Structures are given as C-alpha cells and as structure tokens.
C-alpha cells in the first residue's frame, strides 16, 4: 500500500473523473486537475469566487464549479482549456447545481427552491421546472441516465415528475401518498422508483417506471421512521434503515419484508460473527474477540429533533453480497451483514466515531475512516488498519474509491492524500490481512 504526498484542498472537493484518469481538486477559487497516477498538475483553472461545489461531467470532458453565494456556475473543458462557460443565475440565486447524465445539461436549483433551470451546453434551449421540493433527496437520475425523477410540492401535496433526459420531456407526473416526501431513488435496473416519507411517518412507496404504484411498505406507525435507504446492486433488495435501530430488507418480487437486521448493544449468539476491534494501544492491532460482545452505546438526547439514533448509513457491496450499516447511537461500530445468509458477518469497532465508509467498486472490500490518521480496510478474508504517513497528523475525514478499486482518495480537513493498493491478488497476500 502506497501513499502519495499530501496536497491541499478546500471544502473537501476532490473528485476522480468517471474515466478514472484525472483527479480534480479545488483550492479556494482554483480548480486543479491532476493525473491520477503521476499526480502531475495537468490543468489549472481559476474561478470567480470560492468554489462550493465541483462535479465532473459523465464523459470526463467537463467540470462544473458552482459558487452559490455569487449565483455563478463555471464550466471548464479538459480538451480545450480555453473554452469557458459561465452561468449567472442573477437575482434568483443558486442553491444547488448538478450535471445531467448526458454531460451536456446543467440543472440549477434557485434559492428557496423556486424552480430548477436546465441549461444546455449544446443549444440555446433553457427549460424550467416549477415547484421542486426542498428535501433530503429531491432529484435522482436513473443509472443509465435516461430518466430523471423530481419531487414536487404543490398545494400541500407531493408529486413526482419523471422526465426523459434526452429532451426533458415530461413522461409522467403523479401524486404520491406521502405526508412529506423526503427522498426518491431509482433502482439500479431503472424500473422501480422508491419514494419515502419524512421521518415522522414510516412509509416507502414503490412506483414502476410508467408511474404505477407497485407497492407500499410501512413497518410501524407513530415512532420516527426512515432514516436511510439503499438499493442492492442487482435491484433484488431494498434496504431501509430506520430510527428504531433496525434495517428492513424488502424483496423485489413481493415488496414485502424478508428479514430485519437488528443492532443490539449485546451480541450473544453467533460463532460466525467476528468482532474486529481497533485498540487504543501504541501499536494498534486488530483484535478478534469471542462472543458475547458488548457494543458501546451513546444514549441520544431524544428531546431534540433528528436524534442521533437509528441507522443512518447503508451501503451494499458491489456484488451485493454484503451490506454495511452504521447505527448512530453506536457510532464507532460498523456492522457488516452477509446478504446470502441474511445474517451478521462482522462487527467492526473503532476507537472513534466512524466518519465515512465506502465499498470498493470492484470487490467486497470496505474502507472506513474515523477522523484519525488511520485507514481501516475490511474484507471477508480479514481486516487491516494502516496509518497514513504524514508529518502534520493528517486526519482522514472522508474517503472515495477510484472506479477501478485500486486506489483511494483520503480527504482530510484541508488536505488530501491518495492511497494506492497493491495490485497483486489480495487473497494470496497473507501478510497484511489478519484473520
């Protein structure tokens, strides 16, 4: 495992291009594009204000830089560094900006979510979408980029509009039976749209691509509901994490719950579960404990809104075999579930609260970080914990995998570092993996 040197960045804006060749970072108002392997600076662009949001286009040819305060979006081209494009939202303000899947349209959401403006880089055409909903996840593109689902709110009712991304034609517009729609997400196969309600009501509605309501799922009433939601890569399962510290798995045939995963404070039973602990010793090692395990629990303040309790993060591995979850009142623990056996596979306990975890896009390998200078990797073969070599004490706040799964971008508060994995076969390399 190799680590690159530490580079500066601001606002945690570091993105690897979709084709995996470039790394773009923002330093204040400058956009720096480097080659991923050599980390040489290839391009340097200067924007008009501090960049708040940066995104690659899907074909890795353009980068958009958004400056919300000024209401500006600047688009830079990699092929033609002289090319420039500036979108000024004027008085209407800018709250969010994103690419469309074809990499030629930019969707800007105005202040107060008054409307969404669709700017085209190919033509002079501009489209407007009224009444977008300001919620956790109001816009989602299907994986193949053909359709966009947008949540709307009109007259105290929630609607979903489905657009064809090719020409922004409104395909379907239907009302949803939610009290307060919190988010929507396409299934990976693009045939089902999951729509969920705010935490005051536990409700998930499943719509087919053509707007028919397929099914509705509600686990319980009154208590705080859904906190997070994730589709399995094969679209077979829908995992719903809720405030009652449980994850419920629905199957795509009947849309009924097939199992639920609990996060108890004491794990008694299974012999197959391994607890991987990072100890506080000087030379931190990975300890394996025998059941029963005791998980450290932080009791949340239930009087406040959005209490720190419940399953807030869910992630399926790329092959859909594993599901990693994090329960907010056991923030230093990541639970790994085996989706084939529908049971707990491993419990990863860290010394501090887990800040970010992400699965390798190619293989079942989980990387996680806790705001300490260590990087932690887990795979079914074992786990390993690595210290990021740095003089100044580089704290890893977030991480992001390269699309080929061979390297990781480790993002700190003001710095970033690249970690290159050994490209040889991990299963034969028994030195670093501890079982």
């Amino acid at each position, binding site marked *: 495992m190799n680590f690159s040197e530490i580079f500066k960045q601001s606002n945690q804006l570091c993105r690897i291009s979709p084709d995996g060749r470039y790394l773009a970072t923002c330093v204040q108002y400058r956009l720096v594009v480097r080659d991923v392997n050599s980390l040489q600076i290839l391009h340097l662009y200067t924007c008009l204000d501090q960049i708040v949001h940066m995104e690659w286009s899907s074909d890795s040819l353009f980068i958009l830089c958004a400056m919300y305060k000024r209401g500006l979006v600047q688009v830079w081209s990699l092929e033609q560094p002289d090319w420039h494009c500036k979108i000024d939202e004027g008085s209407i303000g800018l709250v969010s900006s994103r690419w469309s899947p074809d990499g030629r349209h930019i969707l800007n959401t105005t202040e107060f979510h008054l409307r969404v403006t669709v700017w085209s880089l190919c033509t002079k055409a501009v489209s407007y979408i009224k009444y977008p909903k300001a919620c956790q996840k109001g816009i989602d593109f299907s994986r193949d980029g053909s359709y966009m689902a947008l949540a709307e709110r009109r007259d105290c009712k929630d609607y979903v509009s489905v657009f064809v991304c090719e020409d922004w034609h409104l*395909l379907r517009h239907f009302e949803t039976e939610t009290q307060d729609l919190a988010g929507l997400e396409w299934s990976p196969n693009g*045939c089902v749209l999951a729509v969920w309600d705010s935490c005051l009501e536990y409700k998930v509605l499943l719509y087919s691509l053509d707007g028919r309501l397929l099914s509705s799922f509600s686990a319980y009433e009154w208590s705080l509901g859904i906190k997070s939601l994730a589709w399995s890569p094969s679209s077979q399962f829908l995992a719903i994490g809720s405030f009652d510290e449980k994850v419920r798995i629905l199957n795509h045939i009947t849309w009924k719950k097939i199992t639920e995963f609990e996060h108890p404070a004491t794990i008694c039973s299974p012999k197959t579960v391994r607890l991987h602990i990072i100890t506080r010793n000087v030379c931190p090692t990975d300890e394996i404990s025998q059941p029963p395990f005791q998980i450290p629990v932080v009791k949340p303040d239930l009087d406040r809104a959005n209490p720190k309790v419940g399953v807030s993060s869910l992630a399926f591995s790329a092959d859909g075999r594993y599901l990693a979850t994090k329960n907010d009142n056991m923030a230093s623990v990541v639970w790994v579930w085996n989706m084939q056996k529908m049971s707990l596979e491993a419990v990863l306990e860290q010394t501090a609260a887990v800040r970010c975890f992400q699965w390798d896009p190619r293989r079942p390998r989980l990387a996680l970080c806790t705001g300490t200078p260590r990087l932690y990797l887990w795979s079914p073969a074992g786990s390993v914990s690595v210290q990021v070599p740095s003089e100044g004490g580089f704290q890893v706040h977030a991480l992001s995998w390269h699309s080929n799964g061979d390297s990781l971008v480790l993002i700190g508060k003001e710095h970033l570092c690249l970690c290159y994995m050994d490209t040889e076969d991990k299963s034969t390399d028994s030195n670093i993996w501890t079982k």
Partner: protein
Amino acid sequence: MSPLGHFSQSEAPSLSGHRSPFVLTSFCTEDNVLECRSYINQEVSSLGLRAVWTPTDGPAELNVVAVLNSLYELIQLHRQGLRALDDMEVERQRSASNTELLQLSNTRLKGQLELSKRENTSLLEKERQLQLKVKNLQSCLKNEKEEVQRLQNIIASRASQYNHDMKRKEREFGKLKERLNQLLVDKKEKKQAMEVLNYVERADGKRSMWKTGRTEARHEGEVYRTLLSDYDARQRELVLENSEQRKVLQQMKRDMVSLLRGSKPARREETPGDPQTQVRGEGDSEDSEEVFESSCVDAREKLTNSIRLKWRKLKSHMERLDSQASLVQAGEGAEPDAVPLETHGQEMERLKLEIQQCKDFIHSQQQLLQQRLTSPCEEEEAAAIPPGSPMQGEGGRPGERGRLGEDWRALEEQRTHFEKERKTFTEAAIRLSHERMMFEEDRATWLKHQFLHWTPFTDQNQPEMTEGEQEAASVFSPECLPGSPSPETSSSPRCQALQTQSTADPYRSLPPSPESRYR
C-alpha cells in the same frame, strides 16, 4: 355389703338362702331376739342414731321408747333417703335433658361450624381469585403506563421534530420575505444568463430533435420496452429457478421412495406391503408426468402433494425406528427382540429359497414353452422343405409327381394340423402367462401375508386360502403359518382383506409394542 349379707355370714346360720334385701320376715325369730337386739344396736349405732338397747335397761327387755325413737329416726332417715332419691331422680332427669339439649346444640353447632368452614374456604378462594385479578390488573396497569409513557415519548419526539421543521420553515420564510423586500427595493435586476464561448456537441453526437408526438410515442415505447425486458429477464430467472427446484424435488422424491423401499427388509414388525406397492405405482405414474411439466398446475400440485405424503411416511418411519431404537436401548425388550432377529433371518432364508424355487419353476416352464414353440416350427420347416427339394431337383415324372402331390397334400394336412396345434399352444402359452401373472400376484400377497402375520410359533390350523395360494402351497412345502392373527384381520379371508387393506390399516392393525406379539 348389705347388712343381711354380713349377718348371714357372721351371725345367723339359720337363715335361709334368700339374699333379697326386701325379705325381712326371717330376720328375727323368738330364738334369736337377743342377738337381733344386739345386732340392731350395732347397726343403729353405726348409723349414728341412738342405741336401741342399753345394758341398763335389762338383759332380756327392750327399751320400747328407744326402740320407737330409733324406729322413728330410721323412718326419718328412710324418708330423707327417699327424698334424696327423688331429688337425685329429678336431678338425673334434668341432667339427662340437659345432656340431650347439649347434644342437640352440639350437633347444630357442628353443622354451623361446617357451614362456616365451607364459607370460609369459599371466601378464601374468592379472595385468592380477587388477588389474582388484582395482580393481573396491576400488570395491565403497568403495561398501560408503559404504553402511555412510550406514546408520550413518541409525541415528544414528534413535537420536537415539528418544532424543528416549523422553525426551519419560519427561517426560510423570513429569508424569503427579506429577499422579496430586497427585490422590491432593488432597482437593477440581474437576469439569468449564460455566456459560453461556443456550444458543444452532444455527448452522443446526435442532433437534438424537436418535440413531436412521434418522439413522445417513442419515449413511451422505450419505457414499456425497458419494463418488459426487465419482466422478461425476471421471468426467465424464475422459470430457471422453478425448474431447478422441481428437479431437486424430483430427486428428493426418488430418494425418499428408495429410502422407503430400502427400509422394508430392515423393519421387523411393521412391514406394510401396500405403501410399497403404492409408492412404486405412484412413482411410475409420475415419472411419465415429468414430461408434461412446468405449466401444468395439476402436475405441480401432484408433485408437491406426493412429496409431502412421502415425507410424512418417511417421518413416521423414522419416528418408529427411533422408538424401536429407544426400546432396544431400554434393554427390556432385548430378549424378545433377539429371538425375532434369528427367526426373521430364518424366515428370510426360507423365503429366498422359495423364491429361487419359483424362479426355477418359471424357468423350466419357459423352456418347455420354448421347446413346444420351436418344435412345430421345425416340423413345419421339415414339412416345407420336401416339396421344395424334389421340385428344385429333377423335373419329375408324372407318377412321381402324383406321389409327390399326395405326399404334398399329406404334408399340407400335417402343416395345418401343426398350425392348429401351434395356435392352441400359443393360446395355452398366453393362458399360462396369465396364470403365471396371477400366480405372481398371489405369491406377492402371500409374501405380504407372511410378513404381516408371521410368528416364531407354528400353528397347525391352516387358514383358508385361494386356489392360487393352494397351488403355491402344493408346490412348495407349506411352512408355519401365522397362528394368532391380529383380531382386526381375522374376520374376512385374509388374502382378500390384505388386498383391500389401505395403507393405514397395517399400521393400525399392528400391536403397539413388540412384546405383545410374541406371547
């Protein structure tokens, strides 16, 4: 001691034998006046009265005054005694009635006590029930309180969520108002605009199209095509899965069938032949149904039902084996179980021998049949050849031809005769095969019979058998037949009863424990 008795003992030997105290006439006579006088004196003084006679009165005289006084005192004494007696009588009666009263009241009080005891127990019982109820109600109350608490917590969290959202919305509203004010005040309005050096190509290189009805229709088509392909893929997967599972089920069924069949020799007491034949029969019928699979709902249901049935049989068989194993382990049935094993082995040997003999018999029959069939053919061939060879040979003179014609006719007659014989022979063969089949069936039932009702004890009473069985019995040496059949099957002829027995009967007709069989 009565004074008279005393007197009779000590002083008056002249008294008669009368002991009755009321007969006083013979106490004093003229002879024993003095003695009587002194005796009376003694008695009276012992009673505390004045003496009747004192020596100062004179030896042979009685003090009449003293005597009368003492008589009067005696009479007083007597009256007192009588009075006392009366009083005591009265007292006695009074106490008797008191006692009666007391006894009555005693019984009454006992009754009351019983009643009150019963009442007490019933009240205790009621109290206990009430206490239970109270406990239940208390636990209900506790649950309700917990529920209330939970709901209150929920309300509190919802309220805090609402407040949070309200505040957020109010903040946004405030911002909006500010913005609106600002816009009203602001003179120059910055419009949205996009500056771009030059427009770029679309990612897919195509030119953008006008929105027409055709494009809309195309989009719709795309949508449905996507959905359909997804459904297709899913259906294909499901069909694959289905066929896999059906294969697995078939395999399971076959295994179960073989298990059930294979378990027959190992089972000593419970050997129902019917399920076996049933199983075999079902298996045959369903193997043919495998051909018409997937879409046929009936076939599917039949398969699952047959699997369930066989699974149940297997389970019951396993349970029985377990119980047998436990019995064997208990050690009590060790002795009787050891004996049947040996006799079972002997029976098996005997049956094997019989089967071998049957086979030999059938084989010999087959050979005979074969010979019979081939010999007419040879004769036929022999009959067919002579006409050919002389014809093929020289031309033949008329005389010879005539002779040959006669020979030919005779041989033809023989040939027809042999044809007839062959026909009859084939018919006989067919009949024989029928009879053989019958015989096989009878043998099977007879074997079943044997397995169901065999005991180590031979019995001279031979039950009535059908013709087939009698034939079999005559060919082979009749062995020991079951002497004590189960009561349920003895009513009708056993073979027919066995044939009509359902699967459940053998299990039902079997005695519950092994010991009872071998009595």
